[in-house]
């Protein structure tokens, strides 16, 4: 099969044959990959911002941007981007300048670095690390560092509160997030993103696609919840909660630096969706037909590319949908939810998955998954309903 | 190829810097950070040995994992202590916290 890696190898070999030192092709490949990724992020984020505005508008019985660019205001975010680029770059007088300038770069850089192991299509992956999933999770945790740096260096109380909230949120939600990813990793027996997708190529009972979302439905739900918290999306957007903290950690940022935070938020949404797609939704797998005049592999690859994008953007759509439907949680509720609900359920899921794998009965995975789902539902339902406080009683 | 001694010297430098910081810093959190540096210097040595002595079957990496775990536990307890100190003394400067000294 023609993979990206083999293409790169061939390129190296060709360059070596011409007697060019190997540093040159390495640099060329690096520059090309980075610019392709950056271009993808910029374009995708711009259109995601536009979609977000259109989706929110249609949920809210209005049209959203309609003018810039003609058809349904498709050029609105491009115009916004140009505006942000041209804006004056303000650094507050009391800010810690070095950290202030560094913070958006850390956030953006961490997000971009995570694109290295996204498996776009069969063979199309920048680097299929054998610890791919761990790498992605750990690199995305760097985003929080940038947020804290931004919040602290702004020398603004709202920003500091936002940063504190962000730190608390990140530390809490990272734990169930990693634990929920372990279930599929255990089933597949690998952490490499490409192999995780290949492990989902079969079919469950000959009917369902072999995606891990079916046996690991609980893990998927936990992952998606935590991913929302990782991206600071509603209902977990308390670090920036504009009605309480105005804009939280990026309240003092303007112009290009603000645009970097903004871009990173949407790029990060894509990263978490890509992880979910890869680990739970079968990655590039999907029905495909051999196109006439194209080799089988290329057609497979093209369809895979499309399927991967479709799944990712569906998850992003769900995130936007949730954002415009739900209210924001409170800090203490957010923490309690992570530690008291998500963490125990993800542990239970891990234990059941491990037991089933030891027993070696694939069908049991479903029984286990459904049992945990029921257990979680019962646990959630049995929790005392939001307590109605009587007169004179203070909580 | 990078000689093993390079890694060992680097680990030694980081460890010594950590020792210096742990001995001299006044801020309790800075002391904790210095201790983390020391642990990292040790980890570097462990991993370098694991890489260069294949007959040890990656013992070094296993121990590095243990060190990281212990470091996490140490940081958590240490920070809890620092916060407790701060609540009682309104400072995290260790040389001002001298109730037990006479």
């Amino acid at each position, binding site marked *: 099969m023609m993979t990206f890696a083999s293409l790169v190898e061939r390129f190296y070999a060709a360059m070596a044959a011409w007697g060019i030192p190997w540093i040159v092709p390495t640099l060329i490949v690096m520059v090309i990959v980075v610019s392709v990724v950056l271009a993808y992020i910029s374009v995708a984020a711009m259109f995601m911002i536009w979609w977000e505005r259109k989706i929110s508008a249609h949920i809210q019985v209005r049209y959203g941007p309609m003018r810039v660019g003609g058809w349904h205001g498709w050029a609105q975010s491009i115009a916004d981007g140009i505006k942000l680029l041209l804006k004056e770059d303000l650094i507050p007088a009391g800010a810690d300048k070095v950290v202030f300038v560094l913070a958006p770069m850390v956030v953006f850089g961490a997000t971009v670095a995570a694109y290295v192991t996204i498996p776009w299509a069969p063979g199309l992956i920048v680097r299929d690390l054998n610890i791919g999933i761990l790498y992605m999770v750990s690199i995305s945790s760097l985003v929080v560092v940038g947020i804290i740096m931004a919040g602290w260096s702004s020398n603004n109380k709202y920003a500091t509160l936002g940063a504190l909230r962000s730190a608390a949120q990140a530390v809490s939600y990272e734990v169930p997030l990693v634990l929920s990813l372990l279930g599929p990793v255990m089933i597949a027996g690998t952490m490499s993103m490409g192999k995780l997708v290949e492990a989902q190529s079969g079919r469950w009972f000959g009917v369902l696609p072999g995606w891990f979302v079916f046996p690991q439905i609980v893990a998927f739900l936990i992952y998606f919840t935590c991913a929302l918290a990782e991206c600071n999306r509603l209902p977990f957007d308390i670090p920036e909660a504009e009605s309480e903290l105005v804009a939280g950690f990026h309240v003092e940022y303007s112009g290009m630096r603000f645009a970097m935070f903004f871009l990173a938020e949407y790029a990060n949404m894509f990263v978490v969706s890509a992880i979910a797609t890869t680990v739970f939704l079968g990655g590039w797998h999907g029905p495909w037909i051999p196109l006439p005049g194209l080799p089988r592999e290329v057609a497979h690859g093209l369809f895979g590319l499309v399927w991967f994008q479709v799944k990712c953007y569906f998850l992003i759509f769900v995130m936007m949908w949730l954002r415009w439907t739900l209210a924001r949680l409170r*800090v203490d509720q957010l923490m309690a939810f992570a530690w008291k609900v998500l963490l125990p359920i993800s542990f239970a899921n891990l234990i059941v998955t491990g037991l089933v794998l030891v027993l070696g009965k694939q069908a049991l995975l479903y029984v286990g998954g459904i049992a945990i789902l029921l257990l979680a539902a019962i646990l959630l339902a049995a929790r005392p309903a*939001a307590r*109605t406080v009587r007169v*004179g009683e203070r909580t | 190829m990078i000689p093993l001694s390079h890694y060992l010297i680097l680990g030694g430098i980081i460890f010594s810097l950590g020792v210096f910081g742990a001995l001299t810093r006044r801020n309790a959190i800075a002391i904790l950070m210095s201790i983390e540096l020391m642990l990292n210097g040790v980890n570097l040595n462990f991993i370098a040995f694991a890489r260069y002595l294949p007959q040890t079957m990656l013992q070094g990496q296993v121990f590095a994992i243990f060190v990281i775990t212990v470091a996490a536990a140490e940081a958590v307890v240490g920070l809890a202590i620092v916060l407790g100190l701060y609540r009682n003394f309104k400072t995290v400067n260790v040389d001002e916290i001298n109730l037990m000294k006479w």
Partner: protein
Amino acid sequence: MDRPIPIGTTVVMERTGETMEEMYVNMGPQHPSTHGVLRLMLKLDGEYIIDCIPYIGYLHRCHEKIGENRNYTQIIPYTDRLDYLASMSMNFGYVLAVERLMGQKIPERAEYMRVILAELQRIASHLIWLGTFGLDLGNFTIFMYCFREREMILDLFESVTGQRLNYSFYRIGGMPMDFPETFLTDCQVFLTWFKPRLPEYDAIMTDNILFQKRVQGVGISPPQVAVDYGLSGPMLRACGIKWDLRRNDPYSIYDRFEFDIPVFDTCDVWARYMVRRKEMEESVKIVEQALAQLPPGEVMAKMPKTIKPPAGQIYSRAESPRGEIGFYIISDGSPKPYRYKVRSPAYVNLSALPEMLKGCLVADCVAVLGSVDIVLGEVDR
């Protein structure tokens, strides 16, 4: 949970007696959730609010002093600007006071018109409250839904008065003109559209568990506190006290209609939300009955050219969407009031805010402030 309690200038934990570190945060006057130019000084321990000091007066414009230098009819447009989200109710309260001072009776049809407009205004005011409250809690969508319905009410008002916000439509002695011909059918159309929308709001707000978690048990004002501070309107009815001037001190023709006074006794933000949510239904009922009973006839009583109430004084109160709007007028027989004083509900309700906020989180502060439903035009006058 242990909560910080301020004792004098220091802050002491409720149970352990430990003293805490404080942080001051200025909320407002430019803050998205203060609903105008209100400034709150929050004294925080972490995210817990130890104390809250509201600073008001950014919108003060000598309403009462201006009133003493205008004649009785000229004051009406100024009352619009008190509670600019419920101008009809402000007009209503003011003309009621002057008519009571003069002992003036007004035509039946005018009374019905007043009630219809005032109740539509109550719905509009509660809608804008519901929308911004959702916004405070991070739910943007309800805001747009509420504004859609409010626009329809404003269209109705525009067809009647020609204005969309500050109507100045009530006159001492009646109404300046009758409803336009299309109003009755338009109003029916609106009501049939509006009634099925209320369950939609329930679906997005009332039944949403995240919303419930945010509002239940937050911002408690026990009934005794509520009475001590003189709260009124939905704030008081959320404390289990059944007090509505439309029932307890009937004015105009409110005694002719069948409607309930929604009362909830949990004293929290949730109760205030539910009271206002139910009041919208009751207002729909009143409007429907009034439309059905609307008698024909004149809309303006015969009034002298210059209104000169006899010397005397009056305190007259009415139920605005925010509570008891009271007008205290001393007349010396001249065309201008000798003394003109407004008792505005939002100002009084806001005074209980520090009491409700103690021990809450910053996020709760927004919810509690939203639940008070302040309009700064009325607070600052």
